[in-house]
């Protein structure tokens, strides 16, 4: 299972590389065409004028399709994550995720269910240099995450290295540990591409570092909603595949140094 979990982001990361290469020429072709159309008009009006470039600012809200669809094929999983970001400056975005997960983890010797909600907040920095009025993002960001959840131990096995009296059948526990919390930091790397109008498709991977973890007595948090599976160390990984809608709120003009000599015309 874990193998697939890592393989999927790996697979997608391949697409990332290719997606950029093919997407760029396409966009530039469109932009060129646009520019060609605009050029004669501009020449008629005033000579040597570039239209003022504006950046759109606003709120982007969306949902994680990976979590949403996983419930259809994985009977041990139910979850949803809403994502949102708000453009603060040209490069910086406030970003947050809010989610719910119900995951049954079936290990060889333990079967447990973690249920809870989580919130993550932080910022994204867009490293992608957009052409003209493109609005794509390749972001690197930081988040703080917090989850409050419960964990139920369903069944467990006794490890007995000397099963002289026979291996014991799995024991049914059903004990529920409530009021568990965990907090973590994560580095999020992702991309979002505008597919049409204000609709964006994106995906991201996160590396997480657990900073606080309230463990149940005589058990362990094997899965933390939002943080995902826990390992012997404090780190974790995550993945999301989002579709989001951009709500434009206002525009800001881009100040381009070359425009100094040109009289602003509007």
């Amino acid at each position, binding site marked *: 299972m874990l193998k697939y979990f890592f393989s999927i982001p790996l697979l997608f990361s391949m697409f990332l590389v290719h997606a950029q290469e093919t997407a760029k020429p396409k966009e530039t072709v469109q932009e060129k065409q646009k520019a060609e159309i605009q050029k004669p008009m501009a020449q008629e009006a005033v000579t040597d004028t570039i239209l003022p470039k504006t950046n759109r600012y606003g709120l982007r809200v969306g949902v994680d399709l990976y979590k949403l669809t996983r419930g259809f094929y994985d009977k041990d999983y139910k979850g949803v994550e809403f994502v949102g970001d708000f453009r603060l400056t040209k490069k910086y975005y406030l970003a947050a995720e809010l989610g719910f997960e119900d995951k049954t983890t079936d290990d060889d010797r333990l079967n447990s269910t973690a249920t809870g909600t989580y919130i993550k907040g932080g910022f994204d920095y867009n490293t992608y240099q957009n052409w003209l009025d493109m609005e794509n993002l390749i972001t690197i960001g930081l988040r703080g995450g917090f989850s409050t959840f419960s964990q139920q131990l369903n069944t467990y096995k006794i*490890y007995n290295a000397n099963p002289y009296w026979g291996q014991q059948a799995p024991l049914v526990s059903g004990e529920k540990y409530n009021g568990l919390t965990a907090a973590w930091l994560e580095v999020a790397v992702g991309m979002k591409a505008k597919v049409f109008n204000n609709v964006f498709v994106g995906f991201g991977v996160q590396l997480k570092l657990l900073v606080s973890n309230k463990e149940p007595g005589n058990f362990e948090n094997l899965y933390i909603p939002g943080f995902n599976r826990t390992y012997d160390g404090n780190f974790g990984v995550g993945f999301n595949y989002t579709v989001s809608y951009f709500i434009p709120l206002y525009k800001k003009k881009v100040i381009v140094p070359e425009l100094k000599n040109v009289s602003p015309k509007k």
Partner: protein
Amino acid sequence: MKKIISFLLIFAFGLSSCEKDDICDPDTPTTPRLVITFYDINNSTVRKRVTNLMVIGKDQKEAIVFNKTATDDTRFLTSGDSIAIPLRTDADTTTYKFTINSGNPNASLINSDEITFVHSRQNSYVSRACGFKTIFNLSAFQRADPAGDSVWMQDIFIINPNIEYENETHVKVFF
């Protein structure tokens, strides 16, 4: 950006290759066995070796294997001064028959005693890979002599009733 992606790829590959924290390390202390040490009845501080001791659980077909390398019946025999025997994780008593000089042609030397250990059990969490272990609290023992050949284990003391690790003696037997 390229650097970050390649770093992530390496990281993800690294994780895929060392994902196995789901195998229980044999060195992890899991369900402990009961450690019995034998002492000389005439000199209570001196350990004494048993001769061809065979230990078989009640209603079990096979005795406990002490010598894993042997292939014949000698694998059930031990001549050390200490043994570790598993307790039942599904019941509160464990009964064993201890036969000394087992297989000796001189039948008068063969002597077997039956001991029932009374213990409470507690299941304690170990790890994701190992699951739980059972630790015991030994409260009492009952000695019987179904063979009618008198008892060879003359004195039995519970030294350490909390059975959690195997690196200590829980029961001392004097003979």
